[in-house]
């Protein structure tokens, strides 16, 4: 069986990797629903209604999985990391409690939205998406506030015995990393989910479904990513500077930079040879790391050598994830002008097979980039669970059977994912037939609503 330390990390890493996808959907799908239903109500085009209904059905399932896996994580913090929570509870508990409030708000209005289509007048039904969206978006922000504290823990005083004695609640909530982390994740969620939406319809179009339903679904996804991708470039840049300032060890590990350097080069690719303390086979771009970190080509960037050996994150664990995430980011950003050139040349939604295939690929890559980015930031924090204050190996549970729990949860997630994919495939049955579209529209405009 696995050691507790490894098993607790594995079970939590796995649970978060699972949850983060559904959480991202939980933030962005309500936005897509707002847009599609607004377009339907304004333009009275039944295709938007059909899209909206299909997305609602899919969201009912993905939201439920997001919610229940969130419950697992809430309890999981106490079950797998009790010693960490004992210490950190007072500091990260407040943002997490705010998160739960927004989570509940989202759940309440999800119930209203899902089951209220026949009870509410169309515009009231649409408006019930607003608190749903706010709940999802705000809960993402505050949960990352709690996470960012682990990277830059502030807002408390330790006494001689190592106990937390004084807490500044607001300082702990808005720790130095908060802005970079929340903005980076928000933009990433919109970009990944936007591409995933576009990818679903691009896939249908590749299989010969070139109807208005597919074109409109595809186009709405592309509009969202067109807004998100440029922001992502700013957000990535800001994040690098935040790292240089507050988390130099993480920056050194993801780069990787073994020795402190003045006018440091940015290395692309390659392999970090930890024993030799150098990067092999990379493509260095002179001075770029200094520029990105400090806006100064001759600035000094700290290397891993500045940190005691047992306090360094392992570059072999994070460098590839970071490079892959950035690579995907640039690929996705590059797809957008290509799409619009095709759009302009074909005077409408393009049906070029190469482009559609690339966008189907982008649908997977967006989520992969979220996972890689999350991996980078959390592995780059090692060996600390709270940077500089508490080590990960001081935080895990001492209860037995954690290895069993890991295999149990792994089996559950596989089972849930398989069932989910199967069911979503059943739901993705393509555009409804013309008659059904019209019927739906009539039903919508009849109106014998409670409110």
């Amino acid at each position, binding site marked *: 069986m696995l050691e507790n330390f490894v098993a607790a990390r594995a079970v939590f890493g796995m649970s978060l990797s699972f949850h983060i996808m559904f959480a991202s959907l939980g933030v962005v799908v309500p936005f897509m629903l707002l847009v599609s239903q607004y377009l339907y109500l304004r333009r009275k085009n039944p295709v938007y209604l059909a899209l909206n209904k299909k997305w609602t059905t899919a969201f*009912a*399932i993905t939201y439920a999985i997001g919610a229940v896996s969130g419950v697992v994580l809430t309890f999981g913090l106490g079950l797998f990391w009790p010693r960490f*929570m004992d210490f950190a509870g007072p500091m990260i508990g407040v943002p997490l409690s705010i998160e739960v409030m927004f989570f509940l708000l989202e759940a309440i209005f999800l119930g209203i939205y899902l089951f*209220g289509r026949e009870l509410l007048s169309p515009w009231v039904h649409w408006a019930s998406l607003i608190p749903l969206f706010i709940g999802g978006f705000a809960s993402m922000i505050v949960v990352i506030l709690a996470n960012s504290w682990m990277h830059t823990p502030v807002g408390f005083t330790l006494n001689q015995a190592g106990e937390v004695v004084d807490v500044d609640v607001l300082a702990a909530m808005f720790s130095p990393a908060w802005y970079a982390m929340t903005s980076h994740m928000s933009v990433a969620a919109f970009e990944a989910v936007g591409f995933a939406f576009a990818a679903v319809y691009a896939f249908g179009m590749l299989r010969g479904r070139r109807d208005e339903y597919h074109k409109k679904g595809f186009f709405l996804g592309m509009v969202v990513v067109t807004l998100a991708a440029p922001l992502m470039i700013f957000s990535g840049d800001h994040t690098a500077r935040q790292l240089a300032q507050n988390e130099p060890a993480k920056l050194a590990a993801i780069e990787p930079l073994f020795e402190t350097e003045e006018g440091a080069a940015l290395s692309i690719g390659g392999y970090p040879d930890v024993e030799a303390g150098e990067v092999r086979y990379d493509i260095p771009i002179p001075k770029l790391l200094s520029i990105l970190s400090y806006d100064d080509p001759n600035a000094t960037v700290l290397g891993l050598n500045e940190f005691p050996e047992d306090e360094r994150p392992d570059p072999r664990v994070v460098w590839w994830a970071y490079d892959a995430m950035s690579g995907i980011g640039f690929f996705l950003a590059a797809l957008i002008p290509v799409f619009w050139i095709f759009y302009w040349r074909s005077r409408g939604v393009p049906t070029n097979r190469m482009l559609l295939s690339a966008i189907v690929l982008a649908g997977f890559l967006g989520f992969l980039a979220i996972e890689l980015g999350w991996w980078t930031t959390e592995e780059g924090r090692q060996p600390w669970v709270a940077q500089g204050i508490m080590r990960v190996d001081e935080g895990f549970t*001492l209860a037995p059977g954690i290895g069993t729990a890991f295999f149990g949860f792994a089996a559950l997630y596989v089972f849930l994912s398989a069932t989910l994919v199967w*069911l979503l495939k059943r*739901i993705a049955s393509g555009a409804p037939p013309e008659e059904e579209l019209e019927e739906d529209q009539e039903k919508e405009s009849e109106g014998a609503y409670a409110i």
Partner: protein
Amino acid sequence: MPFDVILAGALGVSVLLFALAGGADFGAGLWSLLARRGERATEQQQLIERAIGPLWEANELWVVVSAVILWSAFAPAFAAYGTALFVPFVLAIAGVLLRGAFLAFRIEAQEEAPRAYVFFGEIFGSMSIITPFFLGTAAGAIASGRLRLNENELPVDGYFQPWIGPFPIIVGLLGVATCAYLSAIYLTIDAADEDPRLQEDFRVRGIIAGIVVGLLGVIAIPITRLDAPHMWEGLAPGRPASVFTTIAALFLGASLVLLFLRRYPLARAAAILQVVAVFCAWAVAQYPYLLVPDITIQDAASPEPVLIAMSILIVFYVVVLGPSLWFLFRLFKSRSSARGEER
């Protein structure tokens, strides 16, 4: 009143809300599982889905509210629970994960995949029983005094002995029975719009479940005396908490009589008050401990600024979620309960 006591009260209220709202949804899972034979089995299952479909996610999240209050305001208690009661809590959350996911799958599968619908229902139903049982045993372990910590805050008697014992198990069983009882009574009102025979089905189930709750309650009396001495001190006749146990017994009887008379909304009110009274009795008897007898509310309380922030946040919970919940329940429950009054 000091902030730590206010927050301990809020913790109790969140657990109570979870029992009244989420618990009943778990009970509905049990009835869905038991509805396999008889001519109206499918109708019963579909009534259950319609009744809990819009509400179950919000209802279930009250237990998460309890968790965040615990870890923000009483972190050491949360750490002790999580460590010593790892096994029952893991089983309970595995139940939450599976039953929630498969309820959502099931609701969508009804149209999209009829054959999977039945299978998804089996998972939803069976997993709905696991969660209240193991949460009940964990609560029983916390209150019984069976769970003792050593100087490293690890359980003295290992990870099973604290919760595998007469008192935790009777609390687990009472948890399941109470969920089933609440659920059956709620469903009589949800069935008001439907076939009257469906309403009759849940009336009978409510009466049976209520009797089971009463019997388990009687069995729990000697067990409490033997296995949960601190609780017994509070609950024994003549002690402060015994007022609430008496009230609970009276409301349980009243709800059974009202069910028998087909006065459904009143029966529901009595059932809810019965559960509230049980929680009051529990809270009074356990006070001031968060873990009998090693951790008190005061021992575990976070620094003052955190307690103040959390207390302010509780106000926000009420202001933001109160009206939202009112709207949710009004939309999906008011019409059927208005019908219930007429009958």
